[in-house]
C-alpha cells in the first residue's frame, strides 16, 4: 500500500513545539508525529510505516487543486491552500511551543481551517497508531464534545468546536463556511490526565505562538542578504531543539532513505555534539547568546558521564542513544527498508567531535563569555584526551561502518581541538601546565597531516592517510585555520573536491569510495554549503554567491533541506529536515554576509 503513496520528501512542511515535531504533506496529511517527544514511537507514522502507520488528514472533500504551501511570515505555522470551484480553503497548522505556566498539555496541535468564497466540504480522517507495533487505540470515548483516544500512557483528545462527532479510522466530513472557520484541536498527554482544550482556546494559543515566533525571528541579527532563508534555517534549528534538555535533534525523522528503495536508512532523532557546536556558532552569529549557551550547557550536561571521552551521539536526555534495531513489517518510505530505530554509531570512536566542541568554546570565548571553572576544566580534559588519542584511527564524521581509518578530517579536527584549547588558554590568566603538551601535540599532529594526508600528485588533501580517496568534509579546511587561506594546498583541495566529487551544479557527493555498505547515496547537502563557505573564505566570493543562490533554489518554497539530494531529480533524500544542513547553510550565509 505504501509504495502507492510517495510524496516527495522535500514537499513536507515541518511544524513543531520544540518537544516533538510533525511533517505535513501538501495533501493536508500529517504523516509523521511522534508523541510525546521526538524520539518516541510515532502516533502518525505513515511516512515510513505504510498505511498501518497512522495519519491525520484535513483536506477538501471535493475536487481541489493545491494552490500553495508555505510558512505564515517568519513563524512556525504552516499554511496549505487549495483552490476549489468558486472558493479557496486554507489549512493553518501550528504546534504550540510555549505551554509553561498555563493550563495546557505538553503537546497541542491546532489545525485551523478557513474557507473563502463559499462553504466547502472538508474531510477529516484521523487514524492514530501506537508503539512500534502500530497498535490501534485501546479505548475510544467521548467527553464534552471531545473524542478521547487512549492507549496506555499516551492519550489525546480531539475537538472541532462543531457539533460534528469525529470518528477515528474513517472519513469524517464537515462543512466550513466563510463566516465560521473550524479549528481542530488535538491535545495529547503522556502519563497524565488529558487536558480538554476548547477550539477557541486552541485558536488563541496558535495566534500567540505565531506572535512569539515572529518576535523571535525579528530579533535575529543577520546580514542584509538572504534574510528569508537565514530566518527559516534559524527557525528550523530552533524547532529541532528539544527544549526540556536543550538537546539539538539532528532530524525529526527516522529512516528516510539516502536513495529511494535503498537500505541506508538511519534514525536521526538523537543529538550529536557537532550539531550543538555548529548551532552555537550559528546562534552567536545572529546575536542569540541565550540559545548558543543553551546548546553549550546541554553539551556539558550530556558529556558528564563519559568524560573525558565524548560519545558520538546522545539520547535527548544526554544518555547513550538506544541500540539500533530494525522494525519488522514496516514498509519504509517508498519501499525503502529497513526502518531502523536507535543508532549503531553510538559506540563509534569519532575524533572530530572534540574539535567541534573546543571550537564552540573558543567561539563563546571570542564573543566575550568567560568559560566558568567547570566548563574550562571539561575543555581541558577533552584537549588532554585528544593529546593522548589523536593517533588512533576512527570512524570519521561520516560514521563509516567499515574498518576505522586515519581520516584526515578527523585529524584536522583533532588539531582544531588543540589549537582552540591553546587559544582559550592564552586568553585566560589560569593557563594550565598542559599548554606545553598541547602545543607539542598540535605540532606533531600538524606535521603528520602535512606529510601523510597530502597527495602531491593531485595537489590536494585526501580522505585518509596515504590514500587517493577524497572527502568533501575537507572543504572545512579554510575554516580550521590549519593552513593560510591563500595556500595552494587549500585551493588545490577545494578544486579537486569540486571536480572529482561534483554531482552537477552546486551538488557534491561526500565521498565516492566504497564504505562497506550496499547501495549508493545522493549528493550530501551540507558539503555544498561548506563549498560555498570555502569559496567565500578563499576570495572566490562571486562563485560562492552563485552557488548559494542555486542551493537556495533547491530548497523549494518551504526553505527546508534534507541531508541529501538526488543529483538528477533534485528530490530531497535522507532524514528531513536536517539540522546539519541548516547549520551549514547559516555558516555559508554568514561568510557571504561578512
Amino acid at each position, binding site marked *: 500500500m505504501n509504495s502507492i503513496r510517495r510524496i516527495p520528501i522535500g514537499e513536507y512542511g515541518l511544524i513543531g513545539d520544540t518537544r516533538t515535531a510533525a511533517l505535513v504533506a501538501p495533501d493536508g496529511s500529517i504523516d509523521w508525529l511522534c508523541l510525546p517527544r521526538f524520539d518516541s514511537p510515532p502516533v502518525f507514522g505513515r511516512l515510513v510505516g505504510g498505511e498501518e502507520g497512522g495519519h491525520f488528514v484535513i483536506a477538501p472533500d471535493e475536487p481541489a487543486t493545491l494552490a500553495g504551501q508555505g510558512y505564515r511570515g517568519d513563524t512556525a505555522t504552516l499554511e496549505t491552500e487549495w483552490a476549489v470551484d468558486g472558493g479557496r480553503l486554507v489549512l493553518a497548522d501550528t504546534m504550540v511551543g510555549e505551554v*509553561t*505556566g*498555563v*493550563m*495546557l498539555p505538553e503537546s497541542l496541535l491546532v489545525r485551523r481551517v478557513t474557507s473563502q468564497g463559499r462553504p466547502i466540504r472538508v474531510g477529516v480522517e484521523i487514524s492514530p497508531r501506537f508503539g512500534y507495533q502500530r497498535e490501534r487505540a*485501546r*479505548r475510544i*470515548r467521548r*467527553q*464534552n*464534545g471531545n473524542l*478521547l483516544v*487512549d492507549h*496506555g*500512557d499516551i*492519550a489525546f*483528545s480531539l*475537538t472541532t*468546536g462543531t457539533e460534528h462527532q469525529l470518528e477515528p479510522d474513517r472519513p469524517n466530513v464537515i462543512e466550513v463556511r466563510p463566516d465560521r472557520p473550524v479549528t481542530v484541536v488535538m491535545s495529547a*498527554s503522556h*502519563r*497524565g*490526565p*488529558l*487536558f*480538554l*482544550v*476548547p477550539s*477557541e*482556546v486552541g485558536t488563541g494559543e496558535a495566534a500567540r505562538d505565531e506572535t512569539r515566533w515572529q518576535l523571535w525571528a525579528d530579533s535575529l541579527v543577520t546580514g542584509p542578504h538572504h534574510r528569508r532563508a537565514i530566518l527559516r534555517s534559524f527557525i528550523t534549528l530552533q524547532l529541532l531543539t528539544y527544549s526540556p534538555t536543550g538537546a539539538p535533534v539532528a532530524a525529526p525523522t527516522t529512516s528516510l532513505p539516502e536513495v529511494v528503495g535503498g537500505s541506508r536508512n538511519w534514525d536521526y532523532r538523537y543529538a550529536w555534539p557537532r550539531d550543538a557546536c555548529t548551532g552555537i556558532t550559528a546562534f552567536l552569529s545572529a546575536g542569540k547568546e541565550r540559545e548558543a549557551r543553551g546548546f553549550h550547557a546541554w553539551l556539558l550536561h550530556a558529556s558528564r558521564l563519559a568524560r573525558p571521552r565524548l560519545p558520538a551521539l546522545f539520547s535527548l536526555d544526554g544518555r547513550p542513544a538506544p541500540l539500533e534495531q530494525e522494525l519488522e513489517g514496516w514498509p519504509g518510505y517508498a519501499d525503502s527498508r529497513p526502518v531502523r530505530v536507535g543508532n549503531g554509531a553510538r559506540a563509534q570512536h569519532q575524533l572530530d567531535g572534540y574539535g567541534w566542541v573546543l571550537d564552540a568554546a573558543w567561539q563563546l570565548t571570542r564573543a566575550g563569555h568567560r568559560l566558568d571553572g567547570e566548563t574550562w576544566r571539561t575543555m581541558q580534559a577533552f584537549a588532554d584526551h585528544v593529546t593522548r588519542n589523536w593517533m588512533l584511527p576512527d570512524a570519521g564524521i561520516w560514521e563509516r561502518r567499515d574498518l576505522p581509518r586515519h581520516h584526515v578530517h578527523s585529524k584536522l579536527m583533532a588539531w582544531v581541538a588543540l589549537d582552540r584549547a591553546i587559544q582559550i588558554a592564552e586568553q585566560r590568566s589560569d593557563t594550565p601546565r598542559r599548554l606545553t603538551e598541547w602545543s607539542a601535540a598540535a605540532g606533531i599532529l600538524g606535521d603528520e597531516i602535512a606529510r601523510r594526508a597530502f597527495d602531491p600528485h593531485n595537489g590536494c588533501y585526501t580522505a585518509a592517510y596515504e590514500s587517493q580517496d577524497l572527502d568533501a568534509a575537507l572543504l572545512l579546511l579554510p575554516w580550521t585555520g590549519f593552513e593560510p587561506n591563500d595556500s595552494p594546498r587549500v585551493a588545490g583541495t577545494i578544486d579537486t573536491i569540486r571536480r572529482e566529487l561534483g554531482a552537477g551544479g552546486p551538488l557534491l557527493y561526500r565521498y565516492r569510495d566504497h564504505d562497506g555498505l550496499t547501495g549508493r547515496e545522493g549528493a550530501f547537502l551540507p558539503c555544498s554549503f561548506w563549498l560555498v563557505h570555502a569559496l567565500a573564505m578563499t576570495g572566490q566570493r562571486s562563485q560562492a554567491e552563485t552557488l548559494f543562490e542555486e542551493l537556495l533554489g533547491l530548497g523549494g518554497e518551504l526553505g527546508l533541506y534534507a541531508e541529501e539530494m538526488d543529483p538528477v531529480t533534485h528530490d530531497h533524500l535522507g532524514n528531513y529536515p536536517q539540522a546539519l544542513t541548516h547549520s551549514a547553510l547559516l555558516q555559508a550565509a554568514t561568510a557571504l554576509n561578512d
Partner: protein
Amino acid sequence: MDWSGWATFGVAATAVLTAVIVGAQLAGLTRLDIPLMLGTLITGDPDRARFVGFFLHLVMGQFFALFYAAGFAQLGRSGWLLGAGFGLIHATIAGAVLVPLLPTIHPRMATERAGPSSTTVLEPPGLLALNYGWSTPLVTMAAHVVYGAILGAFLQVR
C-alpha cells in the same frame, strides 16, 4: 491513640503510596496524576500544581491516617494485615465515591454533564478513575493497601 506514630508513619505511608502511584505512572500502567489533580484545585499552572498538589496529598494522607489510628484504637489491635484491609476499604471508597465527586468541586476539571466550555479543563477521572487507564483501580488499590499495611504495622494501640 498513638499520636507520635501517627505523625511519623502517616507521612511515611503517604510518601510510599505516592511512590507506588508515580512508579505505576512511569511504567505506563496509569495516567492518574494525583499531585496534578489536587494542585490544579489551587493553580492553573500545571508545573506549580504538581508541586502544590504533592504537599496537599501529604496533608490528606496525614488526615486519613487519623481514621486508621482511631480504627486501630477502637478495635484494640493493629497489624499490617488489618491495616491492609483498611487500605482496601479506603481505596474502594476513594475510587467509588470521592474521586468521581472531584469534578463537582474542581474548578479546572470537566464534569460528566458539562457541555463545551471556553476554558481548558482536565479530563475527569470517572468511576474508580478508570478514565486514566484500565489498570488504575488496581494501582490505587495496591497503593492504598501498602499505605494501610505500613500504618497497621507501625502504629501502636494505646
